[in-house]
């Protein structure tokens, strides 16, 4: 299961998602490679907007939906965390 072991930043981002969106799940139970939107956690575009503000405040990175990779970025906790790691300014 080394593949799905959660990194410390992934854990922090999972916590940020749960707290920002008031999801009643334990951050530790979010599958790093599971879907965040649609059938996964069932998030929608308002959640994406809400989450983008929290990410900007916490990590100093502003998401763009014009980014051709946007669907990939939001596809899972792992891809979102990777993007934050690469672009964070704080």
């Amino acid at each position, binding site marked *: 299961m080394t593949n799905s072991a959660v990194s410390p930043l992934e854990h922090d981002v999972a916590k940020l998602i749960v707290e920002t*969106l*008031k*999801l*009643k*799940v334990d951050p530790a139970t979010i599958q790093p490679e599971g879907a965040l939107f649609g059938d996964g956690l*069932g998030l*929608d*575009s*308002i959640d*994406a*907007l*809400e989450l*983008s*503000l929290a990410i*900007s405040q916490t990590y100093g990175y*502003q*998401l*763009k*939906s*014009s980014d051709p990779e946007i669907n990939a970025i939001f596809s899972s906790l792992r891809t979102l965390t990777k993007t934050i790691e690469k672009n964070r300014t704080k």
Partner: protein
Amino acid sequence: MPDAPLIGPYRPDDVLAWEPGGPRTAGQFLSDVAQLVESLSDRPTVLNLATSRYEFLVGFAAAILRGQLTLLPQSRAPQTLRRIASDYPDSYILTDRDETIEGIESVSIQPRRGRASCPGRIPEIPLSQVVAIAFTSGSTGQPVPNKKTWEALTAVAHATGSRLGIKGGDHAVVVATVPHQHMFGLEASVMLPVMHGLVMHAGRPLFPVDIRSALADVTGQRIFVTTPLHLRACLSENVKVPPVALILSATAPLSHSLAQEAERHFHTEVHEIFGFAEAGSVAERRTIDGDSWRPLDGVRLQPDETRWNVHADYLPTPVRVPDRITVDAQGMFVVHGREADQINIAGHRVSLGDLNQKLLEIEGVQDGVFFLPEEGSDLVTRLMAFVVAPGKTSEDLQRALRTHIDPIFMPRPLICVTSLPRNATGKLPRESVSELARQWLAGQGYGA
């Protein structure tokens, strides 16, 4: 009844839309429409799911010319689309990104793209033609159809334009964050620009940075059509935007303070539209001027024994106002709140009773109630639900519920409890549910 043109005052070389690839002229638009008209098969109804506002307009116009009704679902959730498609069995989907919904045929808008400008005249559409059906959540939870004639859409576009002082010669550009399949989006981001010879930005920016880029894409006067949610996001991120000539907001009430802040930040006036899918846009106000709404020209509010109704020549029958309002002698009105158990989440209305009914229909649920907490600091306040369902987990129930209700109404969170605080008569007073919610939120560290 007479006809009215498909699009407003454009010469063939005037820009009608701004796409990621650049401008699209009125002539090119008419040629795109003509090509699609030929390729469509004979069907009575179409679900136009195009994500590009321009592709949507091409599909909408082609459907009108083929005498097909465009269905405007409350959401794009597959179960909502399937429910509507089962009520309108010969429907097909128009898409611009290979979208497929199981059980419904899809037609792509992509293969066209004539570079050539169409020399033909702008087609005329009979004002009495029903061109769209906007769905609302009905009292039984089934989507209720609201027919829209060409007269209703064009009359609202002209009335809104004249109220806001929009002139055809301005060639202003409308940039919008609202979905064009939503009634306000269709009226303000599609019909308003194309009836006045304006330019329509094809994108639908979501994040503040996207909004800045979309506004920066275009030159000339900018009209920004949006919601309180997106305005709040822009202010919170403090995005620097190019000059905007006018902001038009709807779908949820805008607070005075947010409007004031937005006027300062964008250096422009912020106006709001009051409306609902059944009647379309009804009234307008500049938010910082006060609480009163001024009905659009041609709209009258008249009471019956119990409620206020919207009257307009283009409405076949008067339409009930879903909110509690008071109307003064000049016909201006103030909105005091929603009627009975109606709620509005990000521009989507539904009755709490209907949602509760859906919850109780889930296998294993013994009792349950939805609750809308007081507005907090979040962009959108979401519903919560308390459910008695021994042996079921919150995840099980969420999964089951998701197939029955629109995603926007999904409870955040859904909390399993052993019983609900029903009183001796079996009623569940709102105050008791409110107290239950307060205790739960406090326990989670969200407490007031």
